[in-house]
């Protein structure tokens, strides 16, 4: 009897189907009850034809006006105007050299960190922490990662109850301090200097997911532009090009002055998409907050929008506290390095 590579891969399946509870199991039934208890979609309201006709007429008028305005202001929306302004700011910044051997790109950030503790289908509970993350990345991808966490908090009383039901395990998270050899921490910042600064070419690379992998679509485009703008050692021309790439992403919204979690005010730009966690709302807004003076990324937020009330809740956040090129994996940057 011969064994094909496919048979071998099939046999190596680490989780056989029988390991997953069947629908007859109590736990699977409880899960179904939870799903059915989530808010139901709003019923579709059929509008009278006259109302539809008026709406179509009004919409046509709005579109024509928008089209005229679009032509007048040079194909600009409020978001693209701000992005172009940020692009201009980025282009005029002094060049920051990438770290050379012996130097490290240092970034200090604070972020929300939610951990879902759950045995499959049993008493899940959510715990919130604030995580401080300090990272030093050398040009060869070596470096250090130092992470500390705040005391845990429960977002709801229900989470606390489930934690008790699950045995009240310790939730304290210990500081982790890891050092990494070459290419173990990242591919290194030198890649950023090899990227094209022509916005069209750069947009094509991003759209083809050549720089980072990921899903297709404008939502992911926006995330990847944010990923690259986060790297403050990127050449000014590249940062300028990235902002211009963002002007071509359909659906980017201008939020105007926006505070990050540390209370710093910047310019908020956002992209909205269907929520990845429906229990938190039907729409999720991914927000980037930039310092208008330096174009630096001050913070990021994910905001859930309640479909029925329109209320927004920040579900995850990150604030960048400091960044600089430093000479060792113990040196840090002043907190003013990202501006107000």
């Amino acid at each position, binding site marked *: 009897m011969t064994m094909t*590579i496919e048979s071998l*891969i099939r046999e*190596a399946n680490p989780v056989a189907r029988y390991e997953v509870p069947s629908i007859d199991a109590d736990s699977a039934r409880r*899960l179904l009850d939870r799903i059915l208890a989530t808010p139901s979609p709003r019923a579709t309201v059929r509008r009278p034809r006259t109302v539809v006709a008026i709406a179509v007429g009004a919409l046509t008028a709005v579109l024509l006006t928008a089209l005229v305005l679009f032509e007048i202001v040079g194909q600009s929306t409020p978001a693209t105007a701000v992005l172009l302004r940020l692009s201009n700011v980025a282009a005029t910044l002094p060049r920051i050299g990438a770290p050379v051997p012996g130097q490290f790109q240092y970034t200090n950030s604070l972020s929300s960190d939610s951990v*879902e503790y759950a045995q*499959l289908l049993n008493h899940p509970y959510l715990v919130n922490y604030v995580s401080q993350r300090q990272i030093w990345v050398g040009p060869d991808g070596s470096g250090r990662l130092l992470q500390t966490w705040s005391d845990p908090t429960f977002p709801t009383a229900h989470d606390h109850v489930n934690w008790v039901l699950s045995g009240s395990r310790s939730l304290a998270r210990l500081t982790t301090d890891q050092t990494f050899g070459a290419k173990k921490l990242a591919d290194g910042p030198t890649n950023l200097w090899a990227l094209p600064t022509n916005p069209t070419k750069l947009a094509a690379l991003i759209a083809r997911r050549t720089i980072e*992998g990921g899903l297709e679509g404008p939502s992911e485009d926006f995330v990847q532009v944010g990923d690259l703008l986060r790297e403050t050692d990127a050449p000014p021309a590249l940062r300028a090009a990235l902002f211009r790439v963002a002007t071509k992403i359909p659906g980017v919204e201008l939020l105007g002055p926006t505070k990050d979690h540390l209370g710093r005010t910047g310019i908020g730009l956002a992209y909205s998409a269907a929520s990845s966690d429906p229990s938190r709302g*039907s729409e999720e807004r991914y927000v980037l907050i930039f310092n208008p003076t330096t174009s630096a990324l001050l913070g990021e937020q994910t905001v859930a929008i309640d479909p029925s009330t329109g209320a927004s809740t920040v579900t995850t956040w990150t604030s960048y506290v400091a960044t600089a090129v430093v000479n060792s994996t113990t040196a840090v940057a002043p907190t003013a390095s990202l501006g107000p």
Partner: protein
Amino acid sequence: MSSDRAKGFERTYSIHFRDIASYVVRRVPRDEVEVVVVNVFVVAWRRFERVPAPPDDRLWLFGLARRCVAEHTRSRARQGRLRAKLADEEFSVEATSSSAPDPRHDLVLTAMAKLKTLDRECLQLVLWDELSHADAAAVLGCSLNAFELRYQRARNRVRDDIDVSVDASTRPTPSALTDVPLTPKEATA
């Protein structure tokens, strides 16, 4: 909310829960499985009018599960490239801890962990989730032709990797580990 709608959803859930949960449990850390499975079915419940009738509902749910897993992984990884890199490596950590009885299984899992995410997904959808090649291509949103190329490449890489890493004591004889012509399942059915 009509009870017919709830009954219809319950039927869909009962038929596909295990397949979808199996799909998710192999792709995210164990303590995060439930939240992703719930997400999949909550979205399906909310959009139940858009769920195709059987048998196409299975494929629709796999596509949805794939997006939910990707979103979940990405939201975990969003804090930076390092996190993304570490998240990508979670597959190998999870997989090699399965203590498979056949020593070659660990080699397979290690080789699969080295594949690009999409290439690995091709193998998993067909060989672990038991989708046809055409269905797997639809879930991944690519043409059957593109899928076949990826599948073949991934399969060959795993095979080559095992050939290199397997030691003399566990190396199967050539006749025991042969390749097969690439034939879509549905074409042979």
